[in-house]
């Protein structure tokens, strides 16, 4: 069961109720702010633990409970030299079918997991975002497809600021 932590969409009535219960336990305030049931349901799954991990292996394990294999079907688009570590554009897409999740990790950051996306039914297996990078580091994209994990890695060089711009 651990292998499919995010695979319970579409959201059933039951999972919504479970969600609300979990929200109460963790003390999330989403409901107080008038969030929909769907969001409340989603909230109970914020992978708090995975975001605390220091190594990519631990983060992937915490998030998915399994390990990833390299695949050329995972496309990771990131600059070779980041113009600034504060804003590094990173895009991930995949030609795999049945993609349910995409995660992006920065190995040299204090906590390696940067972002994780749940690709719900109907959504394309593709996401772009902007990440912070403490220093030159490997960026790893992990794609969950058909219950298996695939990954791609790219090094992004980060240099400090100075006389420029």
């Amino acid at each position: 069961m651990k292998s499919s932590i995010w695979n319970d969409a579409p959201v059933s009535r039951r999972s919504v109720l479970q969600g609300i219960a979990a929200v109460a336990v963790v003390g999330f305030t989403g409901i107080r702010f008038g969030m929909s049931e769907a969001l409340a349901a989603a909230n109970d799954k914020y992978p708090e633990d995975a975001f605390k991990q220091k190594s990519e292996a631990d983060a992937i394990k915490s998030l998915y409970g399994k390990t990833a294999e390299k695949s050329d079907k995972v496309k990771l688009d990131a600059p070779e030299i980041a113009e600034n570590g504060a804003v590094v554009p990173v895009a991930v897409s995949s030609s795999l079918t049945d993609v349910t999740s995409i995660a992006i990790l920065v190995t040299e950051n204090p906590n390696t997991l940067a972002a994780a996306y749940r690709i719900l039914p109907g959504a394309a297996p593709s996401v772009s975002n902007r990440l912070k990078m403490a220093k030159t580091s490997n960026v790893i994209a992990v794609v969950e497809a058909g219950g298996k994990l695939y990954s791609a890695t790219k090094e992004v060089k980060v240099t400090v600021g100075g006389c420029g711009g």
Partner: protein
Amino acid sequence: MRRFSGLAMAGLAIAVAVLSAPPAAMAADTPNPPADLKAFQKFFKDKFPKVKFEDFVNGPYSMDEGLYKQWKEKEEFPPYEFALDLGKELMAKPFKNGKTLADCFPNKGIGIRQDYPHFDAKQGKVITLELAVNQCLEANGEQPYSYVKDEMAAVTAYMAYTSRGKVFDVKIPDDPRALAAYENGKRYFYTRRGQLNFSCATCHVQSPGERIRAEVLAPALGILNAMPIYRSEWSGMGTTSRRFTSCNSQVRGVPLKPQDEEYRDLEYYLSYVSNGLPISGPGARP
């Protein structure tokens, strides 16, 4: 080049500068802004034959393919978007006396960025857009903004945005004081200062397109057309004032006060020699 040994570097830089100086062949010149403009723009066109003239306003992004791609990505949903909204709001927000910032400007401040700075004969000095904003606030009994970021950046961002595509049209009137201000700005631009013994021109005339500590330097031509800018390094917006003061600190010089006369004159000179290039601000920069 990461850490220069302080004094050694200073001494060395000055020694090199002095030793490489050609004999004093600098006859007294008559100020000639149109000739300066022509030479200035020709220099950059010759140095970067592949860069289209109007692309000089895009700074380092017109010089480096990898950066260009990151810029395009940023422009899809630019980080200065929030500043634009705030600027629009502030322009229209009534003061205690019922007037607004927009009331202080021709055409309510819309599409006029390219006319700044200008020489004000009555005040006898260069009026930049940032100074004009604070003069408006003070004349209406309001607190002036900080010159370097936040509201000032937002308001000037909005004014630049509504002027995009209009070309810089900075005028030097037939007034010896205006010409003196222009010359003073030029002198400031080329004068070496700070422990690194750099002038503005060292980075932005001699070395644009090159990397200093892996950052690609922007060409001086068109550099102010993109102001204010959202700089990733600042994680936020900054004005022309911020750009000038931070440049001074980077060469280890103590910056002057924002909107000091020398900075305003510098802005006057630098804007004038970019006449003919379109306003592209607000910009996003590394």
